[in-house]
């Protein structure tokens, strides 16, 4: 584990050094390099925006606004966080602001407003039949996962997308979302348990009918 963490830290440091060099060149006038700088993160920016607003066209618009804002503010990037985390934080801020405008609600993304309620216990099963990733070729399975994520509240969706879809660390997730690591862990726990609770009964072994239903729906393949 320590070895794995060490390797990961070395890779992270190498990426940060490479990006710092590119950023210096962009600021010195080679502005076209900004396209290459953001390319590895495009997918993540869209998913992060979508995790908040749950609307394709808005998420795309937010990602575009965020990269333009990042380009214009690049001279303010100090290199204390990773570039990708900084970019993600800009995107999430844009997305949250758009979400508030649309929903007219004052959801406070930065504090935990759900201390009291919520039943965060999993769905208890006697066993689990492993679902291989190849099954994602079926649209119905993808939809089941997407619908479950859509049912999470936005602040839980954010951390699930950053951590479990984008593979960001707890520390990076905390930095990008602007909350402390403890709260990230709480939200992640709740998001994961809620996902299990919604999906396990639907996908699990006692409901082989679901997979059978998928098979029938796909024309008996």
């Amino acid at each position, binding site marked *: 584990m320590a070895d794995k963490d060490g390797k990961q830290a070395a890779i992270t440091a190498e990426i940060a050094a490479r990006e710092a060099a590119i950023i210096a060149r962009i600021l010195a006038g080679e502005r076209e390099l*900004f*396209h290459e700088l953001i390319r590895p993160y495009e997918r993540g920016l869209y*998913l992060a925006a979508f995790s908040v607003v749950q609307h394709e066209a808005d998420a795309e618009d937010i990602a575009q606004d965020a990269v333009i804002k990042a*380009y214009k503010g690049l001279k303010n990037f100090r290199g204390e966080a990773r570039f990708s985390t900084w970019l993600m934080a800009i995107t999430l801020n844009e997305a949250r602001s758009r979400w508030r405008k649309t929903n007219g609600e004052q959801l406070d993304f930065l504090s935990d407003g759900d201390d009291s309620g919520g039943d965060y216990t*999993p769905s*208890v099963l006697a066993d689990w039949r492993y679902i291989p990733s190849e099954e994602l070729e079926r649209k119905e399975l*993808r939809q089941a996962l997407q619908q479950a994520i859509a049912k999470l509240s936005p602040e839980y969706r954010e951390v699930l997308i950053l951590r*479990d879809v984008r593979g960001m660390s707890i520390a990076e997730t905390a930095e990008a979302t602007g909350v402390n690591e403890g709260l990230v862990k709480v939200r992640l726990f709740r998001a994961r348990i809620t996902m299990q609770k919604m999906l*396990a009964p639907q996908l699990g072994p006692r409901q082989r009918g679901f997979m059978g239903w998928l098979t029938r729906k796909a024309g008996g393949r």
Partner: protein
Amino acid sequence: MTLNCKHVWAQISSYIDGSVTPEMKQDIERHLAHCRYCSAVLDSTRNILVLVGDDRTFELPVGYSKRLHDRLQASMDSADSTS
């Protein structure tokens, strides 16, 4: 320490992240060895997270990348022409 099922559920997310203490890890694994229900909870949670994390689960809109870079370029060009 002997853990009951609720203790294990409360630690599942941290266990998946590998962030529990070595003692807690050992206690959880001792529990999992004889509790098929908690094993199924752990397996199902892990499996669902693998599926959620797969690139196939969320597809980007067609043409997303091109539109992103086009708009960025347009913004760069307009900043140049006004500076």
